[in-house]
């Protein structure tokens, strides 16, 4: 299919919306838009962060997923209790591939599931006693934990347990931070509020813990990586670049991160924010309270990496800036070889994306470096400030869809006919069965890292591997091929 004009795209949206009842159509129409890069503000063309329409298939998660699964979960030396019935914790356990180093069960607890396993009696009589018991037990069984967080599941808010009181008491007893997080799943419209609640919990219970402690020796080159969850090792491949520039990364939030790193974060000179959606709250707070500037960066694809590295260097002196150029030069041959190898195989291919809160705009640069074109993008739980940042990244007349429903996404794909789709696990098998190459872009389809120059090579290989896989021509069985 050739490039679409804005009116074609608008016609497509109208056609897809046709099936809905009047009221639903009106609501969904606000979430679908034709991109216009000249717009400064997304609120003129798209509505986001609203409650999903009842009855449609949404792909969103809940506040608990945002807090336990995304922000708190990867902090490796703390124990995160999924407080409530067993399912929420067990079914999300270790699914996000936040890599870390350490001995699981001894000093790190990333892939383990701790839960209070609520039963009927806990709902009826309250679960505070159980929680207190669990906190003591954890301290006995895992003495090397550095702290505990209590991640509430829905029932906790419904029955009104006082987890704050229990946590405070336990914190005094065991002499470690115990953080109650009020991230009941029913709060908010998506996991996005869970990120916010988790950020607020970090701010209230963790961030100020070492304000009076000056034992940490700082340097003028201290930076932190914020909003990198180390999926498949992403934070590590970002970190090496920053260290080669001559900077010192003193904290990783929260992939492969530790409690001590978080407590020391206010001592950094610059906060580098990768996932804007999930951690802008804490960055803004630190700017206000500690005067630490923050900047958004993008480590997908060599163009954006070079841009980001230079922007980061701009905060520091001439030595760092000179180093940065050296780093870019050092990797130049490497990434040019990657592009030379894969660009001819991927040139002109069209991609549709539908991911969480940052990748729909961040990865565009990496695809463009490979000569591919992103023809549609959308966020599960992005807010309007995310769309503000997306409009300029995307070409004119491309599709933008917010909290797209299963039906709409399928219809868009049928009409736009992209060569590759990047979305999550719930969409993966539908589209693969439709015969369209698909990458699971939440956990890099069990590959990664994709950040940094090293990651770009893997990214390019994976895209090629998926797109040019011979299996796609074998989707239709031979006896049906003859009939068609």
């Amino acid at each position, binding site marked *: 299919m050739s490039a679409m004009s804005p009116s074609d795209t608008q016609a497509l949206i109208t056609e897809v919306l046709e099936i809905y009842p009047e009221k639903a159509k009106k609501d969904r129409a606000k979430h679908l838009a034709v991109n216009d890069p000249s717009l400064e503000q997304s*609120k003129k063309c798209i509505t986001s962060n609203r409650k999903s329409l009842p009855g449609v298939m949404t792909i969103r998660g809940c506040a608990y997923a945002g807090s336990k699964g995304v922000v708190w979960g990867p902090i490796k030396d703390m124990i995160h209790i999924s407080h409530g019935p067993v399912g929420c914790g067990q079914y999300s356990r270790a699914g996000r591939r936040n890599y870390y180093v350490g001995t699981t069960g001894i000093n790190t607890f990333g892939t383990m599931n701790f839960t209070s396993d609520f039963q009927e009696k806990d709902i009826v009589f309250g679960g505070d006693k159980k929680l207190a018991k669990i906190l003591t037990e954890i301290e006995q069984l895992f003495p090397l934990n550095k702290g505990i967080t209590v991640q509430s599941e829905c029932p906790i808010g419904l029955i009104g347990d006082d987890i704050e009181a229990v946590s405070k008491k336990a914190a005094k007893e065991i002499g470690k931070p115990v953080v109650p997080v009020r991230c009941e799943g029913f709060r908010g419209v998506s996991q996005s509020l869970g990120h916010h609640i988790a950020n607020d919990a970090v701010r209230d219970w963790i961030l100020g813990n070492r304000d009076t402690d000056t034992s940490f020796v700082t340097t003028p080159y201290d930076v932190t990586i914020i909003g990198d969850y180390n999926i498949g090792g992403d934070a590590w491949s970002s970190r090496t670049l920053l260290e080669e520039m001559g900077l010192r990364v003193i904290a990783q939030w929260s992939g492969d991160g530790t409690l001590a790193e978080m407590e020391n974060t206010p001592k950094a000179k610059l906060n580098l924010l990768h996932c804007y959606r999930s951690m802008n709250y804490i960055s*803004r707070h630190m*700017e206000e309270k500690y005067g630490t500037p923050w900047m958004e960066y993008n480590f997908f694809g060599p163009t954006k990496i070079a841009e980001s590295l230079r922007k980061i260097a701009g905060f520091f002196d001439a030595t760092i800036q000179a180093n940065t150029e050296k780093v870019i030069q050092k990797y130049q041959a490497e990434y040019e070889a990657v592009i030379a190898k894969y660009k001819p195989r991927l040139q002109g291919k069209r991609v549709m994306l539908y991911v969480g809160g940052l990748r729909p705009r961040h990865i565009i640069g990496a695809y463009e470096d490979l000569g591919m074109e992103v023809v549609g993008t959308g966020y599960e739980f992005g807010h309007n400030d995310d769309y503000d940042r997306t409009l300029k990244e995307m070409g004119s007349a491309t599709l933008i869809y917010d909290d797209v429903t299963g039906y709409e996404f399928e219809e868009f794909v049928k009409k736009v006919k992209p060569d590759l789709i990047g979305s999550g696990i719930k969409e993966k098998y539908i589209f693969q069965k439709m015969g369209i190459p698909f990458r699971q872009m939440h956990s890099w389809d069990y590959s990664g890292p994709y950040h940094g120059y090293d990651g770009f090579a893997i990214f390019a290989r994976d895209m090629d591997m998926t797109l040019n896989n011979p299996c796609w021509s074998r989707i239709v069985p031979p006896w049906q091929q003859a009939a068609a």
Partner: protein
Amino acid sequence: MPNVMIRVKENGNLLFYIAKKDQEEEIRTVECDSDSEWGGEIELTDGSRYYIDPMTPRPTFPTTLRFKRL
């Protein structure tokens, strides 16, 4: 009466951020804008206007202030 966080943008202009609405907007004009005083009527680039009683001394940004919508 939204709570607004004001920070200095990369280009030196002030950024008006309403967390509840995820609205980021540059400030176009400030009624009283001197070294000793800051506040009054504020106009944003999208044309909306807000008011805050002028403050002395000028606050250091970033800071969170409570504005009245006009």
